[in-house]
């Protein structure tokens, strides 16, 4: 085997500027998805604590729907379906919006699970001190569930980076789309996808390292 990597190198060099910008798109998309997903996840989780049974039902329905359907179906619905009723959104907007709804649902579920690990008397103590519901959420619940759910949230961040590659299916030119094009043009399939895999692995490694640093910074004894 061995593969014709020198030939691929020539291709990569020729396409370098566009590949770099495509890689930039992947990183940008992953970062946006991850941050939006955390904010959305916290928001959805907050709503699951609502006093209103109707709100809780709606939110649980939303979580079930997005966890129960493949994201690509939703992205296609927006990309190919919406124009039939006259709404045309850019692939970027669809990607950000679609992932936002999807990842928020997953993260919310992680936070809901972590919430079961909180101690009811601790929340009660906060209430007895005179804190409002919002303050209790911000000052006690959120800092604790985020820590308890950290491993799940971190693996979701890794998932986001890998999953962002599916947006090439809605004509969004991120890194995978760029490499895909090179593969098609050069017929160096093995070499191209091999290098593609390595680049994703590298991105994921960066995330893993970042997570470790965050973990060291934020871990608290007795809360994990």
């Amino acid at each position, binding site marked *: 085997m061995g593969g014709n990597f020198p030939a691929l190198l020539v291709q990569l060099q020729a396409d370098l500027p566009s590949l770099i910008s495509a890689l930039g798109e992947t990183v940008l998309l992953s970062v946006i998805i991850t941050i939006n997903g955390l904010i959305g996840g916290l928001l959805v989780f907050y709503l699951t604590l609502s006093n209103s049974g109707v709100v809780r039902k709606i939110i649980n329905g939303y979580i079930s729907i997005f966890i129960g359907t493949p994201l690509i179906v939703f992205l296609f619905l927006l990309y190919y379906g919406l124009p039939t009723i006259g709404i045309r959104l850019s692939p970027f907007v669809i990607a950000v919006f679609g992932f936002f709804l999807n990842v928020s649902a997953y993260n919310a579920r992680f936070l809901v699970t972590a919430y079961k690990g909180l*101690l009811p*008397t*601790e929340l*009660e*103590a*906060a*209430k*007895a*001190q*005179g*804190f*409002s519901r919002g*303050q209790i959420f911000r*000052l*006690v619940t959120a*800092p*604790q569930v985020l*820590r308890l759910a950290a491993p799940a949230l971190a693996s979701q961040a890794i998932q986001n980076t890998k999953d962002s590659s599916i947006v090439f299916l809605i004509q969004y030119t991120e890194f995978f789309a760029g490499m895909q094009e090179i593969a098609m043009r050069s017929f160096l399939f093995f070499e191209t996808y091999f290098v593609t895999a390595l680049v994703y692995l590298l991105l994921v490694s960066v995330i893993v390292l970042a997570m470790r640093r965050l973990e060291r910074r934020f871990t*608290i*004894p*007795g*809360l994990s």
Partner: protein
Amino acid sequence: MALLEVRNLVKTFGTKTVLDGVTFDLEEGQTKVIMGPSGCGKSTLLRCLNRLEEPTSGSVRFDGKEMTAPTADVRALRQLIGFVFQNFALYRHLTVLDNVTLALRQLKKMPAALAEERALHELARMDMAEKRDAYPASLSGGQSQRVAIARALAMEPRVLFFDEPTSALDPVMAREVVTLINRLYLENVTILCVTHDLYLAQYISDSIIFLDQGKVRAEDKAENLLSGHADPVIASFFGRKS
């Protein structure tokens, strides 16, 4: 006018009547202990007083304000009541110091430096200042309870509620905590304390409220209740204990 005036307080859970017309007063500077058989409604009573639990009927006047009125600013009133729980209930994600300063900074809007100064003062009072940077997980039960008391005191409450502050502690630690609560008693801190601990009851109370099946069965000084009471229920309760 007493600081806390409880009148005819009733609490039912479904068909079960847990508090059945509780009436008593707590004067400023006074310390009362609530005792009674397990399940007689002691915790429920404390929790109704600051509306962690909604009373079914009756009235709770605190500092002249009706706590149960629909217009009552419950959160403002709660800030005047320091609540110490059996299981300490420290915020696990915060250091000892931050546990004490949190409400000062967030509720009293105290500048950080001032809050820290206040907190350290209260921690020192509870002999816990040297643990300021420790997290709750690394504290013993007795240490945790002392931090919880400091957290309550820091808010300069009008009254301290204790719900069995020593029952999760081993005897040695329990004694330590009793000693500290006794110190507060001698400083005329207003205290309402639920306990099964006779030792605590004798050392910190002006009088004991004996609760039975949701009713105040007797209220009297410790020495009158503890030995040879005329009421057989009370006599047998304390007979069993001592």
